[in-house]
Structures are given as structure tokens and as C-alpha cells.
């Protein structure tokens, strides 16, 4: 792209490279903020979407990679890299004032690599407890269990409320501690065990009567260290972990990881596998949206709607069971194709399902969309503007409900999406009702995709032959796919071994919880729960 080349030529301190559509820009850490703010704020092409922040341990120095994208040309990516060789007290300038999502990403990097970000107003650990010793994703991390024994007491509340900060005060760095809540605030814990947090999420909410003043999400209650585990696993083993990230769009995560590995191996995947994967992905999306719809209705007190959603989802689970063996964790995609060929009944059952689902969608609209109480509650609550959605990185249906066109299936068509004719559902209001209705509309679009592909599955092999031991060549590989709740990215850094040197999954749900934090302020308790349902986050995806 000419525009991007021009832009990058204005950064004299940067070394740039281009591979596929990804520009790699390395800058010294002193110039990081300048480069980031130039890319964000220039008037030619603003890189307004911070896709992900990846921490890296290169061995002798620690680095951070910022993946940026411009909503104007969403298929081009800039990987902005920086590194510091101070392993004792690594410090990098924070970019949290440029992108709203950056603050949380930086906390994650801080948690795993110990890098402190100067001027980030909240440098608590994100997933691990404050009293955890060491930074687990560093290569010199000591895994000795005596260093971190199983804790026998609750985490100190002060640790959750005191935010360590490094600030620039009159040109000098200072270590400070900020308080999250005032002493007289009325704080209610929603979670970790709560019926409406969709998993073990812990929201600390400051209330003024029924009004919400502040929301502080705490993560990490089901942090399984999947990224750390993956560094010791082979690639086919890692696939099984990806199903467990966002379990409601498990097959999509797995598909994305397979694509990333296949990209590295330069493997030709048979068309048949592409078609099958796409159909399974779309079925997963339908199932996930049905559950999302049902859960949101249940959060608003309509339990019958939830049961209806589960009932229709069950049909998809039965199809999965027959073809894949698994139901929730389908375990279907493998590197080079799919695990085994589709069941002889597969096409028949899917074709039966499509008209059934269309009929049921009407029923769902009748039961809930048209309900005056439901309409009244959703109308005018939880406004998320397009700019804010982009800045927060709220991808998927949430962003599209605000009018941000961010569907990776359209931006970077992968698998068989280029053969299907479908439209990206966009709404413009960004209210709760839009986030609600867009899911039902997307089910309709997914059904269209399945309808077009199901009769045209080409013959041939269902998987390409791969070597017994899969070793990825040295390099960095990045793959984006459209999960059910937003963009799911896989970033693999390989040193040529059978396991990755570093693997990072972009969690679409983490930014969604951050979105909740912004849009819930000023609403009522009942709205907070409803907004959570409308964003439809899944906690294992956040915690990884």
C-alpha cells in the first residue's frame, strides 16, 4: 500500500519490512510512543484499531509487539515492535491514552513478562494474584512449586483495590499507588460465583442506590495458562487446548490455529476440508448466537427464552456428535484438514436443520423481540459509539451493532468464505437492542452460507498428508478468523521446533468486558446484567 509506505517513511528511527499484508515496524523503546501516536493521529490514514498487544521474551531482551490496523483498509496490519534489554526492571512507555483497549493489554503483558508501562494508570496484575512470584511467560521463569505454593487464603482486597502506577511527574518517574474506590463507596461483588457472570468473572461494582458508578472486572479465576502450556506442547496437541478457550466457538478457534500452522508449513489444504470447516464454523456460530440470545434473555429474567435457545442449539450439537464425535468440544479440525470425513447423514441433517431454524427464529422474535417489557428495557440503554467501539477493540457483533464493519470473513476471506455470497450485518445505533437483534440476523446470514455450501462440498481427500512430527519453520505467523463474539487472532513465533517459541491468542471477550466497564456507568444494576448478556462474553476466553 502506497499510503502506508509513505507514512512509514516519516518514521526515520524505524526499520520496516513487509510480508504478505503485514508491515513489521521496529522502533527503539524511546520512540515507541511517538511512533504509535503518529500512526494513530496522522491525517492520512489513522491506525485506529489496536488488535492485540503481544509480550515477547527474546532471550536477552524483552519486547512488546503492537498489532495495529486501520478501519479504512482493514486487511493491512502493522506489527509495531519494540524491546528493552533491562530484564531487572523493564519499563516501556504506555500507549493507553491512545487506544482505550491498550490499558488492559498492557496489564496482561505486565502480568506475564514483568514489563511495567510508564503512565498506565493501573498496573495491577491481570490474571495472577498480586503475591505471585515471578513472571510465567519469561523464558527464565522458575516453575518450582515451592515458590508459589497453593494459596490457602483469599486474595487480599487491598491488592485488588490498590493500583501501582509509574507516573511522569514534572519530567521525573515516580512510583505511586492509586486507590480504585473511595472509602465510603458502596461496593458489591458480582461474582466470582454469580448466576449472571457467564462463568467465574468477578465484577466489583460501586453502587449509588441502584445506579452504577464504577465497574472493575477481575479476571483469572479460571486462568489455565494455555499460552504457557502451549510452549511445551507440539502443534497437534495445542489444537486441543484452543477448543477450550472460548468453548462456544471452539471449532472456530481451532480452525484459526490450524490455518496459522498451515500458513507456516505452506501446506495445501484440500478444498473439501475448507468447505467442511466453513460449514462447521457457521453451525458453531449459529449455536453460539442461540446460546447468547438465550442467556441475554435469561439475564433479563425470561427463562423460557433460554430453554428455547438451548432446544434449538441441541439440534446442532446432535449434528456435531454424529460427524465430529464431540459435542461442545468438537475437536474436528486438524493440521491439513479435518479429523475424519463427514458422516453420510451430515448433509441431510444440516439441510433439515436450516428450514427448522428459520421457523424457530420467527418464534424467537415472537417470544422475545416483540415483547414490550423486553423492548422497553433494551431501548436507549448502553450506547456504544462507533469510535469508542474501535478504540476499545470491541470486535464481532458488538462492533457491528455500532456500525463498525469488522467481519474478518469479509476483510480477509479464509477457507470457503470466498465461495459464499453473504452480507455483513451492520447496524448503526450501537444500543443494547442492536447488539441483541444483530445476533438473530447473523444466524440468518450463517444459514445462508451453509445453504450455499452444503450441496457443493467438493470430493477428494478430507485432509492433506502431514509429517508425523510437525515442525514449523522459523518465523512469525499471524492468522485472523472471525469467532462468534469477535476477531480471534493467533500469533505464533517459531524457532523451527515442534513446539512454538511463543503463541498468543487474541481474546475477543477481554475487550468486551472492558467495553462493559465503559458503557455500564450510569445505568442500573439490572442493566449491568443485561449489558453483560448483550456483549455475550465467555470467561474462559478471557482467562485463557
Amino acid at each position, binding site marked *: 500500500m502506497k499510503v502506508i509506505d509513505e507514512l512509514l517513511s516519516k518514521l526515520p528511527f524505524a526499520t520496516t519490512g513487509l510480508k504478505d499484508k503485514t508491515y513489521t515496524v521496529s522502533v527503539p523503546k524511546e520512540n515507541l510512543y511517538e511512533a504509535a501516536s503518529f500512526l494513530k493521529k496522522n491525517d492520512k490514514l489513522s491506525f485506529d484499531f489496536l488488535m492485540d498487544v503481544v509480550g515477547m521474551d527474546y532471550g536477552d531482551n524483552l519486547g512488546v509487539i503492537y498489532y495495529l490496523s486501520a478501519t479504512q483498509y482493514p486487511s493491512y496490519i502493522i506489527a509495531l515492535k519494540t524491546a528493552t534489554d533491562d530484564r531487572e526492571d523493564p519499563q516501556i512507555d504506555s500507549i493507553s491514552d491512545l487506544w482505550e483497549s491498550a490499558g488492559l493489554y498492557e496489564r496482561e503483558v505486565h502480568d506475564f513478562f514483568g514489563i511495567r508501562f510508564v503512565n498506565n494508570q493501573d498496573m495491577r496484575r491481570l490474571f495472577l494474584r498480586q503475591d505471585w512470584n515471578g513472571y510465567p511467560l519469561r523464558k527464565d521463569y522458575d516453575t518450582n512449586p515451592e515458590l508459589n505454593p497453593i494459596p490457602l487464603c483469599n486474595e487480599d482486597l487491598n491488592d485488588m483495590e490498590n493500583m501501582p502506577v509509574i507516573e511522569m511527574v514534572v519530567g521525573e518517574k515516580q512510583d505511586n499507588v492509586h486507590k480504585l474506590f473511595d472509602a465510603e463507596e458502596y461496593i*458489591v461483588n458480582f461474582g466470582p460465583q454469580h448466576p*449472571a457472570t457467564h462463568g467465574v468473572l468477578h465484577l466489583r461494582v460501586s453502587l449509588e442506590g441502584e445506579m452504577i458508578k464504577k465497574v472493575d472486572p477481575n479476571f483469572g479465576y479460571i486462568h489455565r495458562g494455555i499460552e504457557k502450556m502451549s510452549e511445551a506442547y507440539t502443534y497437534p496437541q495445542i489444537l486441543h487446548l484452543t477448543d477450550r478457550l472460548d468453548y462456544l466457538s471452539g471449532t472456530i478457534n481451532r480452525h484459526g490455529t490450524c490455518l496459522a500452522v498451515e500458513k507456516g508449513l505452506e501446506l495445501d489444504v484440500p478444498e473439501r476440508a475448507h468447505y467442511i470447516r466453513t460449514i462447521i464454523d457457521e453451525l458453531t456460530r449459529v449455536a453460539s448466537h442461540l446460546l447468547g440470545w438465550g442467556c441475554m434473555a435469561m439475564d*433479563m*429474567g*425470561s427463562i423460557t427464552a433460554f*430453554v428455547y435457545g438451548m432446544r434449538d442449539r441441541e439440534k446442532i450439537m446432535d449434528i456435531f456428535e454424529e460427524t465430529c464425535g464431540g459435542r461442545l468440544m468438537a475437536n474436528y479440525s486438524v493440521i491439513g484438514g479435518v479429523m475424519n470425513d463427514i458422516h453420510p447423514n451430515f448433509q441431510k441433517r444440516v439441510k433439515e436443520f436450516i428450514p427448522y431454524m428459520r421457523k424457530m427464529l420467527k418464534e424467537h422474535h415472537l417470544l422475545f423481540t416483540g415483547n414490550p*417489557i423486553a423492548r422497553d*428495557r433494551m431501548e436507549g440503554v448502553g450506547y456504544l459509539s462507533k469510535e469508542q467501539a474501535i478504540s476499545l477493540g470491541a470486535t464481532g457483533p458488538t462492533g457491528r451493532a455500532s456500525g463498525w464493519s469488522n467481519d474478518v470473513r469479509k476483510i480477509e476471506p479464509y477457507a470457503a468464505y470466498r465461495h459464499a455470497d453473504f452480507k455483513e450485518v451492520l447496524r448503526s445505533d450501537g444500543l443494547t437492542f442492536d447488539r441483541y437483534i444483530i445476533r438473530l440476523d447473523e444466524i440468518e446470514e450463517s444459514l445462508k452460507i451453509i445453504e450455499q455450501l452444503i450441496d457443493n462440498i467438493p470430493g477428494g481427500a478430507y485432509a492433506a498428508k502431514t509429517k508425523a512430527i510437525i515442525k514449523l519453520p522459523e518465523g512469525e505467523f499471524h492468522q485472523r478468523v472471525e469467532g462468534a463474539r469477535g476477531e480471534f487472532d493467533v500469533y505464533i513465533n517459531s524457532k523451527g521446533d515442534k513446539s512454538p517459541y511463543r503463541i498468543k491468542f487474541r481474546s475477543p471477550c477481554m475487550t468486551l468486558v472492558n467495553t462493559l466497564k465503559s458503557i455500564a456507568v450510569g445505568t442500573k444494576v439490572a*442493566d449491568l446484567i443485561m449489558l453483560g448478556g448483550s456483549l455475550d462474553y465467555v470467561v474462559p476466553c478471557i482467562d485463557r
Partner: protein
Amino acid sequence: MFHFEVVTQWIDRFLRTYLQGGWALFIEFVLIGVVVLTAYAVLALILIYVERKVCAFFQCRIGPNRVGPFGVFQSVADMIKILLKELIKIDRVDPRLFRLAAYLVIIASICTFGAIPFDKGLHAVDFNIGVFYLLAVSSLGVVGILLAGWASNNKYTMIGAMRSGAQLISYELSCGLALMTIVMLSGSMQLSVIVEQQSYAWNIFRGGIPAIIAFVIYLIAGHAETNRGPFDLPEAESELTAGYHTEYSGIQFGFFYLAEYLNMFIIAAIATTLFLGGWMPLHIPGWDGFNEVMDYIPPVLWFFAKSFICVFLALWVRWTMPRLRIDQLLNLEWKILMPISLLNIILMAIWVIWII
């Protein structure tokens, strides 16, 4: 028509032939107490079973089907379980108020239950201020709920109790005004008199448009009084886990649970008594043959049939509607139901003076 009067009067005469008046009265009191409590518990079991089956029907499920034929003994099994459950001692609650709250709720509910006329003669207390008594006693329950929320020393219960206070006190108004409309029509507060008046036309037909409006308002407000369905904000499972009774366990929780179901029935029973003719069969003036056939159905059956239709309506609403938000809830009462109720009273006055 077979009235239960026959049985109760026979018992009364039988006791008085062998005992002095005072002792006979005492034994009658004990008997009535036992009967009311038993009926209360049995009715609760039936209602729980009905609710689970109806809910299953709405949700395309089967519902309880393992214990006994069609699962009819499921709620009995549940009762035995809840009686055997441990009462967990909660740290830092106010133990006296904590226990008192559960008792208050169930006592208020039983007291209301006692005043319902199931049949002529099957009526524990028949005051001349029956309607007033019903309103007064049933609203005692809110004290129990507020106490439960306060004594539990928990933020969820506290929010639940505050919501409950706001909700019950607000909806009490519409509830009372709707009942007053009928009192205006009948000119009496005595429940037996109100029922007798409806022998040829139930109040809902006799009272015309204002009675129908009052009936609808009473169903909505009464439903809100039971903390169920779209009005379950005080419990709001997905927001406040279980609202005001989060900390309760065992039979203390059971008291809240029982009272909730029975309150649903009580609201239906009051609606039946005041609007749908109580135990009176359906009579149409002039159709003597039809009226005679209707008389063959015992009045107790009529009463329960009408009540259960109202209960079914409540269940239908509960399992269809999402929950209201607190501001919508209060708007509905203060901006819609209350003004309509007040206007309706005037309408009823006009109806009573010029039309009947």
C-alpha cells in the same frame, strides 16, 4: 347444591350436645387450626407440582416424571428433603430478627389464607370487614421480607429488601383501590355477603366496565404483590442471586418458598371471591335448566376451578415475560395503574348510582 355447611354444622351440633359451649368452641378452634394448616401445606405441594408441570409445558419439557405416576409425588419428596435439611448458622446475622422474618412471612400468609371463603360454611373467619382484613394481614408480609433483607447482613439481600419494600408498598395501593371498587359495588366488606350477592351475576358481569378494569388491575397488582413473574425484582435471580432470602437455608427458606406459592393462590382466591363469584356456580338469569345442571357441580370445585384458572394466568405471565427494571416497575404503578384505579372508582360510583 351441596354445601359444606352441612358438615360443619353437624360437627358443631355434635360437640355442643356432649360439651359445654366454651369447650366445644375451644375444640372447634383447634380443629380449624389443624385443618387450615394442613390445607395450606397440601395446597402448597399441589401448587409446586402444578407450577413445575405448567412451566415444563411452556418450555417444551416434560417436568417431574420420576417419583410416582407423572411425578405427582415429586413435591412430597422435595418437602421431606427440605424438612431434613440443615439450618446453616450464618456468621454476623442478627439471629433473632433473621428467624423472626421467616415466621412473619408465613404467618401473614396463613392469616390471609384463613379468611378465604371456600364454600358456604367452609370459612374460618367471616368478619364484617373481611376485605379490609385481607388487605391488612397480607401486607404484613412485607415487614418479614424487609427484616429478612436487613437481618441477613448481606448486600444482595439488602438491595432485594429495599426493592421489595418499594414494590409491595406501591402495588398495595392499586390492589386496595381495585378491591374498593368492588366493595362499592357490593356495599359490603363481608366476604360471605359479597359472594351471596353474586348468585345470579358475578361481579365482573354485574359491575360492567369498571369491574373489568378493576379485575385486570387487581391481577397485575396482585401478581406484583407475590414477587413473581415479571415482578420478581426482589429475588431477581440473575441480578441478586436470590434477593432477600439469599442467606436462608432448610425449612426457613422453605417458609419463604411456601409463602410465595400460597400468596399466588391467595391472590387468585381473592380475585375469585370478589370478581368471579367465589364458590357460586355460573348462573344465567332465565336459563333454569342450565342453572340446575351447574348446581350439580359442588361449590368447592367451582371455587378451586376458578382459582386455578387465575393461577394458570399468573404462571403463564411468569414464564413468558422478562423482568421489569425498578424504574419501569414504579412507573407502571404510579403513572399508569394508580391513576386508572382512581378514575375507575369514580366510574364505578357512576355505574352504581345511575346504571344498576
